[in-house]
């Protein structure tokens, strides 16, 4: 959990108080997991949605806080893009997906999902904080934070001011990507936030015609990366039409992917219980 000792600005900070923010008193959020990468477009939101589904399958109460304010993907992935957030005396009410995942995202507050949010860092970070303290999440076993790319404002605010139990890092089998993911892992280490493990996305694809396994990225340095970062592998996910279609309109299931995700969820829960 963040404290002043691990804060990068501790030497020139004038605040006498810890910058952890208070949660909404009506909320009872037991565990918070952040899904991060540093790199964009590797599948953070897809992994967040899949992990939420996996936790739900274990009978748990789950929410997703979409911390990607300028490029939110969660409302489409969970098919709640047409719903709008309402307010109550306890705070903003997150919308709920068909299967019962609570969702808060900036796009659910916008009249038009294509409207850009042209905000500078402090306002963006403020919105993320509000998604934590001004939203009535109620009783949740797990809240998943879907982080934006980068190690800037949002990452810093989340790691400084929210009680993260652990982070899941998403990568793809490309050297260039793992270099950027390493930046995020090093940031989490500096901030003393535990990293639970790595999910490698787009590991391979299956040709729909000849069923041959195609490696788009011929990089096989994953095991070297894991041992250098001293992290466990939680799952390897394929690149497939079905996952890409998660963002589409029709109902979604994929036995192979969900089996992998259930195993990852078990590892995450074990890590957090310890």
């Amino acid at each position, binding site marked *: 959990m963040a404290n002043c000792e691990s804060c990068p600005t501790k030497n020139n900070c004038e605040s006498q108080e810890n910058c952890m923010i208070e949660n909404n008193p009506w909320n009872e959020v037991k565990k918070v997991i952040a899904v991060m990468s540093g790199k964009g477009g590797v599948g953070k939101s897809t992994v967040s949605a899949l992990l939420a589904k996996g936790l739900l399958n274990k009978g748990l109460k789950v929410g997703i806080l979409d911390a990607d304010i300028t490029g939110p993907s969660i409302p*489409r992935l969970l098919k709640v893009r047409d719903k709008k957030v309402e307010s109550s005396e306890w705070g903003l009410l997150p919308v709920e997906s068909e299967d019962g995942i609570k969702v808060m995202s900036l796009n659910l507050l916008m009249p038009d999902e294509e409207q850009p*949010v042209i905000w500078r860092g402090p306002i963006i970070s403020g919105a993320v904080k509000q998604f934590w303290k001004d939203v009535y999440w109620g009783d949740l076993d797990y809240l998943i934070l879907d982080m934006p790319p980068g*190690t800037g*404002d949002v990452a810093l605010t989340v790691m400084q001011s929210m009680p993260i139990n652990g982070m899941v890092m998403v990568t793809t089998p490309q050297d260039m990507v793992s270099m950027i993911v390493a930046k995020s892992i*090093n940031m989490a280490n500096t901030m003393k936030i535990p990293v639970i493990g790595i999910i490698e996305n787009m590991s391979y694809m299956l040709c729909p015609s000849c069923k041959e396994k195609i490696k*788009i990225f011929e990089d096989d340095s994953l095991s070297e990366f894991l041992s250098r970062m001293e992290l466990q592998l939680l799952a390897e996910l394929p690149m497939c039409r079905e996952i890409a279609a998660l963002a589409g309109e029709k109902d979604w299931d994929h036995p192979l992917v969900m089996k992998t995700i259930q195993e990852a969820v078990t590892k995450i829960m074990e890590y957090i219980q310890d």
Partner: protein
Amino acid sequence: MVSSCSGCSTASTCSGSCPSVPELTEAQKLSNVKNVIAVMSGKGGVGKSSVTGMLAVSLMRQGYKVGVLDADVTGPSIPKIFGITAKADANENGIIPASTEKGIKLISLNLMIANEDDPVVWRGPIISQLVKQFWTDVIWGELDYLLIDLPPGTGDVPISVFQSIPVNGVITVSSPQQLANMVVRKAIKMANMYDANFYGLIENMAYVECPDCQKRIEIFGKPNGEKEAEFNEIPFLGELPIDPKLAELSDAGKIEEYNSEKFNQIIQKLINQSLGKGTKE
């Protein structure tokens, strides 16, 4: 196109002159950049850096002097794909960009930190300031084209780039995923608010060719770049496949060796439609 107050998001609350027309720095006096192109998407991981890299290489092959400004401060890809590990240098006039084997000039935060995987844990104002410095304090010298590789999002960096760098044209990169289209539309709308001039849209990751049966696999759904371009009222430049060869060469830092017939068509279209007549004298 110098960013004008009318295109500025804070025009109504701004009290005075905008820092977009400051006095020239020493580095700027030593530079003459004829055309600035921003590569933007809004969405992450669609191939902004790859497109920037390929564009730089194609223009260089045509005999132009090219520079690349990596504006993705917290997630820089440019040095890696060009295989640059040397650090940027400086003299009393400013920062000296790195140069690739073939002579493309590069500046990126990763050329200024000790280890490439050290994180840059900075808040927006500092990140924006650095990107502005990449424009004002780097001795770019004589350049026909400076390409700016923007980070994902519509936050600090794109705001600062549009406000303080005279961008001549924007190229936007998309993928066939509807989800990506939604986020790309946000970025296009943002650029329009700054009166940006669009050179066009490139649809990346349109398909993969199966190495075994050669079938075209449309992994992210049916390519729709042309329709998206039309919807956003910007020119369509063409589609690009997911190419394992490009990923391999990029990881090896050898993007300058990459050659793609598809991309050559795109660059030709770009030159015919925009660059041929768009260069300011």
